[in-house]
């Protein structure tokens, strides 16, 4: 692979200082399983995507790692590894869906070095994007090769010029959990709800989040479940395996249900759109209804928002099925403990 300079700052200020000075020439480095092993080794570069001259190691900044649970919920540092999330007893108790999603990511080897921040910010897996010989729009080129090519894994909703699906399993769960991102740059800090964190190609062709090049995610905050909320994460990949491969469709559900009637909730799909996709059309169809009676029709309502490409009709069918299953799975479980319990 091409050369780069590895910076290992000891505190956050230094890290942010480098990013501030260098702009896109320096990129944050967490576990490195995507940026080094994927993006840089595969030489994914283009006009809109320079090869990083420097990598800023965030794992040498101690304050960015670790899980804190307090009255308001939990705060998970951006460089916390996925295995530390999976094995955290409090997270498993109060945020089981987050743990479920983290456990569904990739392989045990990757989970032992990949981080929360890296998982959220990993680049798309569109196979044209991942091949250096396709200089596609997302990299700054002229053409989206997915339009005429084999787009079986591409978006069925929300594409525009570029038809990626967002690859992160954790992002889907975080959106459904109503989590917030804490973001820092050299001079400022801001908190962004994950609802507003991911951007579609319509807004920005070259990036998948609202982060500016000089900003990093420092921490994710997840609130406790409100009483009577049921959670589930369901993932379907090509082989129907629990892990190892990216989702063809995943669904995270947080449902506030009383006596079988949907009061409120969030239903988020992964693998279908350039962002983790909140299926408000399904939520609305369930609103105030007895779930048993309304479920099938409500999930089918998802079809109305989709616009499949030439090779991925099947994903619409699959999404409807996974929606039903995820919602059923949530309701079969006990409600998630709140902070009080």
């Amino acid at each position, binding site marked *: 692979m091409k*050369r780069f300079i590895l910076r290992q700052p000891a505190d956050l200020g230094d890290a942010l200082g480098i990013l501030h000075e260098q702009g896109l020439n320096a990129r944050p480095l967490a576990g490195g*399983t995507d940026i080094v092993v994927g993006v840089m080794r595969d030489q994914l570069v283009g006009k809109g995507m320079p090869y990083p001259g420097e990598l800023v190691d965030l794992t040498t900044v101690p304050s960015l790692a670790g899980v804190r649970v307090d009255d308001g919920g939990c705060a998970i540092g951006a460089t916390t590894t996925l295995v530390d999330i999976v094995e955290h007893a409090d997270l498993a108790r109060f945020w089981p869906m987050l743990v479920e999603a983290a456990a569904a990511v990739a392989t045990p*080897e990757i989970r032992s070095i990949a981080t929360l921040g890296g998982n959220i910010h990993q680049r798309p897996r569109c196979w044209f994007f991942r091949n250096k*010989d396709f200089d596609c729009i997302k990299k700054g080129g002229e053409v989206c090769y997915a339009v005429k090519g084999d787009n079986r894994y591409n978006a069925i909703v929300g594409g525009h010029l570029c038809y990626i699906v967002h690859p992160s399993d954790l992002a889907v769960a975080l959106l459904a959990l109503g989590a917030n991102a804490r973001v820092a740059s050299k001079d400022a800090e801001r908190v962004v709800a994950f609802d507003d964190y991911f951007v579609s190609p319509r807004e920005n062709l070259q990036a998948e989040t609202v982060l500016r090049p000089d900003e990093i995610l420092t921490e994710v905050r997840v609130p406790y479940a409100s009483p009577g909320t049921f959670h589930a994460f369901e993932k379907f990949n090509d082989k*129907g395996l629990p892990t190892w491969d990216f989702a063809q469709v995943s669904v995270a559900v947080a449902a506030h249900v009383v006596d079988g009637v949907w009061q409120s909730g969030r239903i988020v799909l992964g693998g279908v759109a350039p962002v983790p996709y909140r299926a408000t059309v399904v939520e609305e169809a369930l609103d105030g209804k007895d779930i048993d009676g309304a479920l099938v029709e409500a999930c089918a309502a998802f079809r109305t928002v989709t616009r499949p490409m030439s090779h991925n009709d099947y*994903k619409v069918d*699959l999404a409807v099925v996974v929606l039903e299953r995820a919602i059923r799975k949530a309701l079969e479980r006990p409600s998630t403990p709140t902070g009080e319990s």
Partner: protein
Amino acid sequence: MNDLTGPTPAGATAYVHPAPTGDVHAVSVSIDGVRHELSVESRESLWETLVYRLGHGGANLGCDRAQCGICNVVIDGRSVNSCAVLTARLSGKSITTVTGLSSGPKVSDLHPLQRAFWEEGAFQCGICTKGFLMTSHALLERNPDPTDDEILAALSGVLCRCGEQARIVLAVKRAALEMRTGAVVAPEGSLPHTSETSLMPHTSEVIGARIPRIHGMGSVTDEGQYLSLMTLPGMVFVRMLRSPYPRARIVSVDTRAAEQVPGVVAVVHHFNMPEPYASTVIEGPPYRYLLGRDLVQVGMPVAVVAAESEHIADDALALIEVEYEVLEPTLDYLNTATAPPQWDNHLPGTIRNVIPPVVVGEPDQALEHADVLIENVTTTPYEQHVPLELRTGLYFWEGDNLVTYQTTHRTFDARRELARWLNLELDQVRLIQTGFMGSSYGSADHLIEEVVLPAVLSKITGRPVRSTLTREESFLTSAHRGRTWTKVKMGVNRDGVIQGVAVDVVYDGGTNAGTPASAAASPGLSGVGVRGGWYVFQILYSYLSQKYEGIEVWTNSLRAGPMRGVGRMFGLFALETSMEKAAYGIGMDPLAFRLRNLNETGAVFDEISGTQPGLPFGRVGGQRASLERAAELIEWADLWRPPRGREVRPGVFRGLGIVSTLDRGGGRQGGAPSDAPPPPSTAQVLLHPDGTLEVLSGSTEVGSGQRTLMAMIAAQVTGITLDRVVINPGVDTGINTDTGPTNSSLQTNVSGWAVLEASELLKSALVDHAARAMTDLGFDPAHEALDVRDGWVFVTDRDEVRCSVDDVVANLSEPLHAESDRRRKLTEESVAVGAHAVEVEVDTATGGIEIVRYVAVHDVGKALNRMALDQQVEGGIVMGIGGALHEELIVDEVTGILVNPNILDYKVPSLYEVPLFIVDLVEIPQDYGPFGAVAIGQASTPPVAPVLANALYNAVGVWVTDLPLSRNRVLDALGGRA
């Protein structure tokens, strides 16, 4: 540790990796308990540090992308991909590799995991073993008593392409038990052993037993000389710049900037390629030259860089400027007749070959008058073997002679090809295969530029060279199973008799142009691809009339070549789905329909030449017995229902499938013309004065146990105990004699015979030699005979009168010696038959196919090594499952670029995808095989796709006849019906 035991450049010391430059970091790490103060560049991975910088043999390399897990090591208690971490970030960490797992060189020093893997047969080629061992080790340290699910979850990030998943789980469980209880558990059916260096039993009665790999120690420790771990003193690395276009002409190449990069030793391309290499034709037409100007496929080499490290070579590649004239490629294999011609072709467009049709009887009439006519169009995609080891070659010259180490299964053939392409005499090339390699499954056929160019660079630079293909390069350049389209028409009468069959094939040979000298070994040109498919039809069932047509076409996509049975895969898929459709067409039970129409006579035409009649069919009875046994094991009579007849949960259906299978190995090689001589079979055996029996055989080990089998045959025949038999793991053309390649399932019948014959000769020499000593003990040579068993020479019928072999040979001044040089007869072909059956569960909502039970029955003649045989069958099925359900290499229709040349997107089967297997054997001995054995190496893969497609139909009543049967296709087919 990576010191080669074979030849190395004269006068040289150990390899030293260049000192880091640029962004250098000081790191202090502990590796296997030893502290290292290292200085590394930021881009150096832990794997590179281990193998290149430290000469450490503790981790193999399969992808360099965190996708296969064979490079796993343990860092601070957790299993980690050593390719995926940068050494510069590891200060203060403690790393354990397989080197740190055992405490010494003896069997008793092995960690229980290592021993269990070896003894349970948890590997074939062993390239994945270090990864599994380290990951299991991390697991057991945390969880000494894991459940099956916990084992699967923990190991799910490591792949085994040989398909030993089930045994791996078994081995981990056994080791866990041993570690908890302290007791050593012997695996079922294993023979006791006493040796400190191997698991070979102290008996000569080994044929038919379960014998673990004779050189398994090398796979479970860091000792096996896998080439990806090997270095040569003073070596440079080569890397290649590759064409991004499927068809183009090179206009100019500018290498000035690349040559300036410090550490670059040479840059070679079309315009500075020296003679005689520049004008050597490798194949054609269209003619392909080494670094030629005309590029015919994506990934063809344009320039080669030799540099002090792979990173430096990559830096240089990025600076080479090439101007291309881009030409219109042929990408659509179903429309080649109208494509612009690319060579002086006497056929339309880029059609390569119209295979002379074969017609028997009156097929057109038969189809017209049959009660029911079915038409079945099937397609199969590009598939690749994906051997998990990154293909590596080492090269150095001694004057005008080349010495090279290769990961190949065809040691002697590879030498021949290299010699030809380098303009050398045969004896100027010495080629060594170390005996340890990530099994190739046929992918190492067709040595093209990748293997020749490094030799040229070594010659030009005067330096030893190492070349390792990246995973992407391996997907681009090695041989693939070609794409096919097949249309079958089958006419059947209601009484179940097949009136006629007509088969029409389009076989995409891609850019395989065949060698110009002869059509041998080039399925792209010789018609073998197409005929291999026809053969399946004519051998398995009988038809009153038959017609076979087919063409082979050229496309600017990938090179087609052999993969576990040339032509068998598409042939069996087309045939067995047609048989199923025909059975349903006349309302007959699919099993009864098959049994009704078995071919039990012979071949109506020869597979390779197409001439009539073909060889008599030596497998009478085996196929019927296999089908009946498979039906019994899958409980066909009780469980079979018409389509959609078994809904087990809402929307979830079960279904059954059953098919026949065959393969042919032995006499001739796949691509050989019909009058070509069969491959040589040679072997030598030596009985040394210390009582060890040395077997010399050129039979190349590819993981399936060839070397173990040769040793077993020698032990059984000579009567010397297997623990006293030695056989070198590797094959060296400077030492061994040619005994054919390890492909087309032929080593058992080729080299096996030679070892058997040499051993018989040796045994009679031994008996002669023993006679005098035995006479002193009361042996009466006039009326009695001697025999040898379990290391004793004894008087037949009076085995208490005996003398140990050791004593008999102790006073020899030189070893007893015997050899065999045997040409097999063409009639000594071995056709292996069998039947597979499956029960699947199909979810109409998700399109998912789950295998509930899988039954494989093979007529093997005689099981020589039951462990290796089961492994072969299981491994073939696992590979078949991958191909049937998920694997396909996708070439972008617009640009011709491969879109999924990586392990993740190609979807190699994981640990989770291994079903419950039931393997059973039918043993009807054949006198053309040693001990009656028939080679079956390639018979267990092709039936998997058709049996699953048939079971899918039986479950849910829809056909998918385009492979793979992936979720998207199943859901599309279910369409409105779900």
